[in-house]
């Protein structure tokens, strides 16, 4: 008898570390009261904790926007910093609800890995940085250059493809860590530093004299980065997808966190976006003021972009292809109607 009780107690003691989950992610999120968001272990402008430990960045804003849509409170997010290797497992195993970690949308990931990309919040692509005194203004003039990059990443393959395609000679000097790559480049061990363009701007801050370096205009690969959810949960997928769209739509319609209250009495499209008319929020499984909360608490896409990576931040990235489709870029969102 006593032994039996003991084993019950033991079993219960071991059981406290485990917890069970149910079917729909949205219901789970509502029940536990926060969104569990997978982010990077620190990437300037995208997901980065500051000295007080608060997370900020373009990818972080997606998570905050989802929390705003679900709860009307952008602070109901818990962040899980993930390495590149464990990010997909964390999503598949249900450890996180959204993966918003500068993840490139590729066919393999979308299909074979059982994931869904809920949109693109930053169109990235691999670029080159060189010293100004090299006198180079185009990547096509880089014949014979030595190139610093990370080992074992797609950037190395992209460089190989690009140089071979253009019949140029080059020499790769590869390092394990981003920090070592930029140090080597700064020390003059190579002529060119290559990585994703957003990374180029972030790494440039670590150079001895950033003003002596330029980023070349050529982009040699497509790296659409966006939030990811598990495949097979359409309700949650829709919610994250339309959260991203709502921010882009808000920018296009000129709705900002400052004027969102007055816009409630604006055009019919404004009213639909902000939940004064229609049932768009209900259809997503959240309140009709979902987009109002997103814009009010997080801002539209332009606000998020400028706050985290824009020209006034240390990164100083121009909108480029990430401008709205109506302004020469490719950020485009289906209408809310």
């Amino acid at each position, binding site marked *: 008898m006593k032994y039996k009780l003991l084993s019950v107690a033991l079993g219960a003691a071991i059981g406290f570390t485990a917890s069970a989950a149910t079917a729909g992610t949205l219901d789970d999120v509502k029940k536990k009261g926060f969104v569990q968001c997978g982010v990077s272990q620190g990437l300037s402008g995208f997901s980065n904790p*500051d000295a007080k430990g608060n997370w900020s960045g373009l990818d972080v804003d997606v998570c905050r926007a989802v929390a705003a849509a679900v709860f009307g409170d952008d602070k109901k997010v818990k962040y899980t910093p993930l390495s590149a290797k464990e990010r997909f497992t964390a999503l598949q*195993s249900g450890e996180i609800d959204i993966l918003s970690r500068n993840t490139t949308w590729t066919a393999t990931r979308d299909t074979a890995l059982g994931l869904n990309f809920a949109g693109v919040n930053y169109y990235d692509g691999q670029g080159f940085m060189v010293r100004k005194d090299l006198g180079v203004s185009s990547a096509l003039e880089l014949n014979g250059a030595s190139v610093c990059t990370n080992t074992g990443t797609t950037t190395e393959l992209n460089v190989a493809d690009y140089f071979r395609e253009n019949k140029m000679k080059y020499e790769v000097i590869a390092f394990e860590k981003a920090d070592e790559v930029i140090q080597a480049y700064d020390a003059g061990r190579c002529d060119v530093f290559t990585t994703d363009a957003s990374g180029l701007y972030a790494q440039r801050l*670590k150079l001895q004299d950033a003003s002596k370096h330029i980023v070349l205009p050529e982009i040699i690969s497509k790296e659409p980065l966006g939030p990811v959810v598990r495949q097979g949960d359409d309700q949650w997928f829709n919610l994250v997808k339309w959260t991203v769209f709502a921010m882009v739509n808000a920018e296009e319609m000129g709705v900002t966190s400052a004027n969102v209250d007055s816009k409630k009495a604006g055009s019919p499209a404004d009213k639909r976006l902000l939940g004064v008319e229609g049932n768009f929020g209900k259809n997503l499984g959240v309140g009709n003021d979902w987009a109002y909360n997103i814009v009010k608490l997080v801002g539209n896409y332009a606000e998020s972009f400028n706050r985290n990576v824009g020209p006034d931040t240390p990164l100083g990235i121009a909108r480029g292809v990430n401008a709205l489709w109506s302004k020469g870029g490719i950020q485009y969102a289906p209408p809310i109607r």
Partner: protein
Amino acid sequence: MVQNYVRTKMSPDMAPPATETGIIGWVMKNLLSSWLSVVLTVFGAYVIYLIVPGVVEFAIVNAIWVGKDGLDCRSIADGGRVQDGQAIGACWPYVQAYFSQFIYGRYPLEERWRVDIAMFVGVVSLIPLLIPTIPYKRENAIFLLGVYPFLVTILLTGGNIGIGNGAWGFLAILMVLGVGFVVFQAKTTQSIQISSGLKIVAAIGVAIAIVYLALGFDYGMLDVETPLWGGLLVTLVVAITGIVASFPIGIILALGRRSEMPVARLVSVIFIEFWRGVPLITVLFMSSVMLPLFLPEGVQFDKLLRVLIGVTLFSAAYMAETVRGGLQAISRGQYEGAMALGLSFWQMMGLIILPQALKLVIPGIVNAFIGLFKDTTLVLIVGLFDLLGQVQASFTDPVWSSPATSHTGYLFAAMVFWVFCFGMSRYSIFMENLLHRGHKR
């Protein structure tokens, strides 16, 4: 008449030649005694000359001591505030700004007093244990190993773990407590015979029940999840848990491997060889990447707990081999003598063999501890931020980004690790000298 000169007093001793005493003597004897020594001395001096002035210049002379963001560690030409041409050394204000994050990670600001108390109680109860002349060792050790871990768990997590299993769990606990009470009371009433084995089982049951209740009690403290822990806190939690838990497991394994019972020996050998055969990184990866896939969807173990178990089992295997080395150095006569005195196996081990064996392998044990302490930096790859991980993560903050930031951060991390590891090393030497019983050269 010749008068012989007879000395009646000894002449005073002459001072030794200048080349044998003082600084000159020391230098002549230790640095310049032969041509090889001269060459080595010159070479060593050259290496010191190469390294030390550079470090001092970077860390002290050219260092920047005050500032409010990374621009204060950047030259004007580079968009910063430091005069052009002035050499820029370490950017200490960055460490200052990030200091609390390096210590606590992202532990909530208003809850950090809990970490402070846990660390304070730990230090206050550990120091008397380390100083040989202070009494009450047994009570101190019981507190530190039996009570303190649960106190820390409750303080750091906020308690309130486990009662979520519902009323049944609670009921079971109450029954265990009740039965335990009955068993202990039984002796005085003498109504039934209670064997001592049963009593031990009851005592263990009551202990588990009390721990379970203590961990499950809602103390009204904010629930701080382990992903928020970081910095030195995680380094210490992982290292100390690994060190404390792996030591007894390692001793058991070492005894098992030398046992004459085939099953015990086989199990120990398989365990040791398995855990020694896989790299720690693999263990951590398996626990964080593969384990979640094996578990049913939605069921998950705390990541830090997974790491703690992995690190403990891993270092226990190494500890077992270290201890086995000590056991092998004890001569057969010691065993036979103990057996002749009629001691049981555990008495023989506890009173005769282990005290000698463990003393012999103090350097090896401390070596394993230091290695474990430094291996904690590997937890970064499973997304936990130890001290080094927290330092590296801070490099990406655009506010503090400057050419010197990462150098400064690494220098800081190195200093902290060195202080801890050097401390352990010195204490081990102190213990060796204290415990030497005629084995010393």
